[in-house]
């Protein structure tokens, strides 16, 4: 009992830390970080767009992992976990699309250009939509779980094609994000130390937010399954 109370206390402290952290990130994004060289004020959307896209990928990975776990163990809670990860994933995918679209309008002149990365996020949205369409079409619980898990894995297998092969066929507009962060000396955008600081803390902050959201979802699932058991 005492242990439990301590865990709740720690969680509450973490929540407050996360809140302050995100507030600092937002203030930092608008006030502290300078704008990138040669680009205007709109580059500040970087601190929100990239973390959203990163979390989308993370959620997608998470749901694939839980789908595999479900097929291996056949425990219904893994299916609920995969669904929860996908629900959060679609939320962040929409946010990444909207912030990216605004950025594209400012930087490239139009909201949508079918750049390879725009294509892949759009496909991701389609996959999520298809996943939920499939789920709503099946009534039986275990059948729904197995089929949507298989679909989720199948979709996950095709993702590398969008990330690695489509950009080779169609010319991209996005700068090379990974190289940019690691080398911090990309030709298109130079990341100064202050930009990098805000960017990385934003990435960490939003990842923390995502972890917290996932945890809430999982707690909810645990309670739901317990209620179902009691009703039986």
């Amino acid at each position, binding site marked *: 009992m005492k242990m439990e109370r301590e865990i709740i206390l720690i969680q509450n402290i973490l929540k407050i830390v996360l809140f302050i952290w995100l507030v600092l990130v937002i203030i930092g994004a608008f006030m502290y970080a300078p704008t990138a060289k040669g680009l205007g004020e709109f580059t500040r959307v970087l601190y929100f767009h990239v973390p959203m896209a990163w979390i989308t990928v993370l959620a997608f990975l998470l749901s694939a992992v839980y789908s595999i776990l479900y097929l291996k163990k056949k425990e219904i809670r893994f299916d609920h976990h995969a669904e929860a990860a996908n629900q959060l994933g679609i939320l962040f995918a929409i946010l990444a699309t909207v912030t990216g679209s605004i950025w594209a309008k400012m930087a490239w002149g139009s909201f949508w250009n079918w750049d390879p990365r725009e294509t892949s996020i759009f496909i991701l949205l389609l996959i999520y939509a298809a996943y939920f369409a499939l789920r709503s079409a099946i009534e039986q619980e275990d059948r729904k779980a197995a089929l949507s898990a298989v679909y989720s894995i199948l979709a996950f297998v095709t993702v590398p094609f969008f990330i690695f092969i489509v950009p080779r066929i*169609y010319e991209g507009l996005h700068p090379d994000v990974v190289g940019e962060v690691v080398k911090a000396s990309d030709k298109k955008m130079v990341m100064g130390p202050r930009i990098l600081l805000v960017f990385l803390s934003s990435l960490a902050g939003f990842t923390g937010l995502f972890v917290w959201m996932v945890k809430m979802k999982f707690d909810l699932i645990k309670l739901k399954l317990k209620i179902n058991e009691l009703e039986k």
Partner: protein
Amino acid sequence: MLKAWLIFKKDLQQEFRTRYAINAILLFSVVTLTAVSFAIGAFSADSDILSALLWIILFFSSMSGLSHIFVREEETHTSDTLKLVSPATSVFIGKLFFNLFLLFALEIITVPLFIAVMNLEVINPSLFILVIFLGSLGLAAGGTMVAAIISKAGAKGALFTILSFPILLPVLISGISATKKAVTEPLISPAASELQALIAYAVVITTASILLFDFVWNE
């Protein structure tokens, strides 16, 4: 492997008894081809648009017929018997062969017709045929697996296209791009990365499907 062959033969016989899937898929492709031809006319479109149109016709025609192979087993309640007589993997391979056969039959009729009606000039025919062949492998592999999922989900008609599209899109993107090159360029080498993508896709999806099929089939 022998069992896969037997299942393929059984499906072929069953198909020629009713000819449902092959009629549906062929007529669908002819209808879309007619619609496209009416809308565009013979001399007004360039090769970029035509190669995209060819793949769109192939994709939607295959969507109209590929799901039949598993839906039929569910409708006639024969899937339980099939489960008893053969392992899941050979069922999948047999069905995959049948869908490939169906796609090739579709292409043998649609592609020459498309070239004739749309007045498409193919500069590199061997690359063109290779692209169509590799693309069919990908379409058949992805389509067969999604068909298996759909048949267990109560065969909701439109769901098949919705589920297939994101999975099959790499085939469409690289297929369209490679077809463009086959139509306009005499050498194979510019299309190398598309061909790699098509081969890799067919291999990856077939492997993943064989691994996953057991979970769908025995559900």
